[in-house]
């Protein structure tokens, strides 16, 4: 399942997309994120679900701002969450 967390507002589209079929719930992205954006939760989109990575509820509406420090205007963009994910389950739309 592709879970899109974030929003589109006047200034653009900001979504963190987690493929829960690929995600193994390892939690490396949660540790790697310097701004407490991610967390591991129980997959309750199905009656039987394992652990999956998710964007914290309180961050979903300000994802543009929460992730801003990892996305400088110039210079290298190293997004730790994406770099550390082995199954390549997480992507950003911006």
């Amino acid at each position, binding site marked *: 399942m592709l879970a899109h967390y974030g929003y589109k*507002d*006047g*200034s653009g589209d900001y979504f963190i997309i987690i493929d829960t079929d690929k995600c193994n719930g390892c939690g490396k992205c949660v540790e790697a994120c310097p701004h407490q954006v991610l967390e591991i939760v129980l997959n309750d989109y199905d009656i039987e679900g394992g652990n999956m990575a998710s964007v914290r509820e*309180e961050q979903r*509406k*300000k994802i543009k*701002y929460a992730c*801003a420090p990892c996305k400088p*205007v*110039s210079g290298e963009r190293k997004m730790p969450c994406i770099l550390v994910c082995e199954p390549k389950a997480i992507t950003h739309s911006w």
Partner: protein
Amino acid sequence: MITAGVDIGAKIVKVVILDNGKVIGRGKALVGFDVGKSASDLFETVLKNASLSRNNVKKVVATGTGRESVHNKPPVNAEEVVSEVVADAVGAFYLVPTVRTVIDVGAEEGRGVKVGEGGKVKDFVINERCAAGAGTFIETMARALEVKVEEMGPLSLKSTQTIPMNAQCCVFAESEVVTLIHSKVSKEDISKAIHDAIASRIGSMVLRVGVEKDVVLIGGPALNPGFLPPLKRELNTDIIVPEYPEYVSALGAAIIAAKDGV
């Protein structure tokens, strides 16, 4: 040499008249239904107050979202238009030569500009088209709180507790404020929450260009005493607010006019 800068913002138009580096006239007015007319009327008023006519002005440079409405159009007849980012940098640099980061918060847009040697623009980030990231947010919340916009800042400074705001949208925040009022949260605390929220958003945006001292804050909301403390906290640095912060962009435009207006 006399030059003029006209900054036509989303809500307010500002005019600055410069004579050899000295400000000899300034004025601001609400942008009405007819943007060009509002700008022209103000321009003529400011000129008159300085006992000048358009002929005395060597060059006019316009900036701001409404700049095209006076570009080569009488009576303002701005010969050149520049982006707000450049005008911000030039104006801030003139007033604070040690500036490295300019934060400009307007009615509908927020900007972060990284400035290099000589006031040159190195990087910039714009928070556009979302009212929650600009002055409109505070204004809308003032209405929901039923206080005047000017009272918002002083109210927030009297707050005794920090409460979070969950809504990130002007429209939803309005509902949230109403709920908070019903929950008997004081106006002071709500106002502080509002200022914290917008400072957090502006701060995050500025982090994308990097925060380097000296940091200068300009734009209308810079006049709001409640805006500065949370912004300083967010960026963990001192922030300089020059005199007449809302005119800095127009000043920058006037300086640009003087530079190449020969």
